[in-house]
């Protein structure tokens, strides 16, 4: 949020700040706001729909109708809006948007442990080696976000699986530093916390005038990055309080017909929030949908009866809404979890973790849609064609969003790759 990478030296920066060049003055926030409201949208945006726990490819986007029952599972394939592409019969609405989708059936990743795979699939790198890599939203927002924006460049909402202590929302900005952490919307009904002042309008203005004077005089007497950064952050928080863009967080604003299309589930409302935020220029929004860790019968039932219908409604409404608003070509929607699930149903009627062959789905973002890329064998045990590793996946996302994935970054004097050096972009998408 606070920009530390302007290319100015620290000294330049302090001089400019002292001269009043940087940072909108408090009295000038109204015009500054007007500019932001009409400001340019970033060229592309991204919505990550994170299926926490690891969704089963055999129950969603890579069905094996001809395999024996213990592989095939309970669902049947149905036709979709694209001839030759079939999806699970539990996703009838999603079936109608497949002409906007590219299914990657060749996902193949090394990690089958939630804790590490969640990080691996969020950052593109395995944990360890003394480097903390940023989560996808921080990485993307840093590359394509508008540093001067009043609105956050990265927002996370939704619910992680079962245990939010062991499996929290992944919000690590890694080596990019805390300024690149997301704004987390914990409660969709409340939106951004603490946006309203307690004092009456006149009192509040009165306070701000004095605060501004004290802020300036301290920053002049003890000029430091910290004092200036605090001052800028306060001013931006005040802008946000007055901003019309921030009403994007307020779902009560939404006409009922539109919000009902998304379903009244928490995930559906998260998808709606994501669309509203992208609409006002937020470049990256992540929405969690939990309960995909279907090891045994009770979890399977919950997933089939509650989660899949929520997904079907929320995802299809999101894609249709983006399409109707002409935003789909510039908005990439990613459907993924940390891994897939075992091809064979286990003796507890569930499926376990499986990274060797699974599926992710991309929508919009200007990709060549309406296709399936990659193929698994008859049982879904191995990738036969179109293998996509973690690095390949990240390189592809970068390419779609217009980010150079071969870029090097220097962290603590250590040269690092934005994305794994050997990564190959999935060329069929372009």
């Amino acid at each position, binding site marked *: 949020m606070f920009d530390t990478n302007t290319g100015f030296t620290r000294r330049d920066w302090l001089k400019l700040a002292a001269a009043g060049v940087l940072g909108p003055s408090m009295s000038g926030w109204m015009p500054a706001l007007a500019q932001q409201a009409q400001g340019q949208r970033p060229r592309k945006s991204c919505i990550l729909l994170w299926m926490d726990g690891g969704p089963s490819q055999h129950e969603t986007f890579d069905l094996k109708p001809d395999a024996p029952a213990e592989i095939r599972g309970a669902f049947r394939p149905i036709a979709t809006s694209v001839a030759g592409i079939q999806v699970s019969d539990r996703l009838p609405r999603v079936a109608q948007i497949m002409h906007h989708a590219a299914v990657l059936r060749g996902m193949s990743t090394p990690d089958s442990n939630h804790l590490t795979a969640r990080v691996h699939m969020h950052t593109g790198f395995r944990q360890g080696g003394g480097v903390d890599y940023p989560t996808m939203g921080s990485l993307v927002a840093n590359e394509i976000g508008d540093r001067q924006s009043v609105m956050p460049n990265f927002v996370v909402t939704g619910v992680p699986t079962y245990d939010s202590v062991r499996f929290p929302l992944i919000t690590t900005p890694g080596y990019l530093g805390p300024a690149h952490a997301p704004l987390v919307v914990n409660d969709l009904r409340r939106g951004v*916390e603490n946006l309203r*002042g307690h004092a009456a309008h006149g009192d509040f203005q009165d306070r701000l005038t004095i605060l501004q004077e004290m802020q300036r005089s301290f920053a002049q007497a003890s000029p430091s990055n910290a004092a200036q950064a605090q001052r800028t952050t306060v001013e*931006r928080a005040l802008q946000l309080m007055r901003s019309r863009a921030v009403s994007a967080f307020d779902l009560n604003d939404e006409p009922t017909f539109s919000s009902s299309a998304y379903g009244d589930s928490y995930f559906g409302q998260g998808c709606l929030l994501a669309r509203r935020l992208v609409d006002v220029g937020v470049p990256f929004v992540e929405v969690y949908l939990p309960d995909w860790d279907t090891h045994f019968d009770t979890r399977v039932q919950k997933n089939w009866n509650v989660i899949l219908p929520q997904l079907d409604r929320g995802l299809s409404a999101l894609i249709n809404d983006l399409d109707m608003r002409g935003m789909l070509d510039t908005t990439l929607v990613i459907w993924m979890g940390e891994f897939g699930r075992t091809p064979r149903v286990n003796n507890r009627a569930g499926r376990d973790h499986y990274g060797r062959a699974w599926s992710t789905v991309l929508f919009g973002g200007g990709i060549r849609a309406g296709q399936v890329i990659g193929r698994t064998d008859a049982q879904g045990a191995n990738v036969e064609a179109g293998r996509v590793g973690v690095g390949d996946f990240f390189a592809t996302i970068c390419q779609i969003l217009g980010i150079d994935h071969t870029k090097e970054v220097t962290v603590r004097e250590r040269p690092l790759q934005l994305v794994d050096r050997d990564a190959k972009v999935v060329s069929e998408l372009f």
Partner: protein
Amino acid sequence: MRIHRTIPCALTLLAMALASERTAFAQGAGRDVAGVAKAIDREIQVKLDGKSIQPSPRADDAEFLRRVSLDITGRIPTSERAAGYLASTDPQRRGKLIDELLADTRYGETFAGNWIDLIHATGSPPRSMTAGFRKWLGDEFNQGSGWDKIVHEMLTAEGTKPAGYFVRANKEPGQLAGTTTRFFLGVRVECAECHNHPFNDWKQTDYWGMAAFFTRVKQVNEKGGNVLTENPLPGKKPKSPGSGATITIPNSGVRTGGGKLVKATFLKGPEPKLSDEGPLRPALAEWVTAKENPYFARAAVHRLWAHFFGIGFVRPIDDFHADSEPSHPELLQLLAREFVASGHDHKHLIRCICTSEAYQRSSKPIAQNQDDDALLGRMAVKVMTADVLFDSLVTAMGNPKLPGGLGAPLPYEIYSGGAAKGARPSAREEFLKFFDTRDVDSGVTTEYTHGIPQVLALMNAKQFNATPPVVEKLVNAKASKEKAIEMLFLATLTRYPTANEMKLMTGYIDRRDDLAAGYTGVLWILFNTNEFVLNH
């Protein structure tokens, strides 16, 4: 400076034997604090002279009181304390203040808190043990135990001892090797986990050689609780005789050398003789905390120095390597020597640092030093940790009982439509979670890391907008407006208001309906200033 080039020969078995007389209580007491402080200032002056940089003048009493209180006891002083100190004419008042703060139990709690933050940032310690560890470590600091003894206990703790918190926070030998070397030796061997490092001289075998010391650590559930042990489990066959302590580098995609067997070896030091079974950590702890270990004292004094000055001699503070170019190599050596000679006494070193002119300088730059922030011509402006900010807010408000509700409910709570299991976090816990935005791991304390959500909370959360006890007290005491404004400035900024500030604030109060509303608004303004949230 290439201190560690000399390590292989500096460490002998004899040295290890000598070092085993670890100091239960540090012996800094009789040592010459003023002399060390002068030596610190001499070293700094040499560097300033070399660049023709003039130091800023001495901080006034208000600036010093606020800074040293924040740095040692983790909160601003009360208004009463500030008024008393600012009225004092005792020529010894700064030295006495330092002693008084070091005798306050909040000194130990503050530094224990810093270590807990660091351990949290790099591992996953057992939450249920945090309070016990905080108490243990805080007591050790407050009693003045030697750092060598404290670290020895952290590394070797068995059973359910609170000192075992550090080891338990790390899930595998490699992680323990990484944090042990960073925290206690000030080097980042972990960069060599996967391959030899291209930019310094750490070898993959340095990392895994240290990791091998932790291969026997396990946690076993017994009747008395979860027990940390290195002894063989009953019924387990001992290893083949003579195999000693080794670790096999695990295979992984990014790693070279997978499958290779590495023997337990002290960092750039000898391979100790170790038994085929039983604890290995004592041998490592002896070596780590030995007086002769040049890494150990250097890492400790460097961390302390960076705490007080906001900047270390190298960056990051735990990354000394062959090509490091410390800004003040002689000073670093001097501090390390003094630390060892004092029996690894934290309090003594803090006394020396805080007594120096360098520490007592103003943070306000002058024309002759404004372009430099490495050579200590003026004090750095530091940020407060979440703990320090919370404790300072509460101190300034007059210790109110704060309601919770700063953070929204946990996501799963909303989702499942019911309350979460267990108690809701306290207002303090909520605050810490919400306001801890630092990259603790980087050791940087001069970078402001709060974002818009934190600033909004400080401005608009209901906790900070109710009428606090300090305001009620001023209203009830029927203090004059001017007196009340003075007290509110002392309670927050640890100084008296300027004439202009007095004018602005009386004007503000006069425009309100009643005094309570006026004072509450004044406090609100002060809380949201950069001057309040920073340590300068």
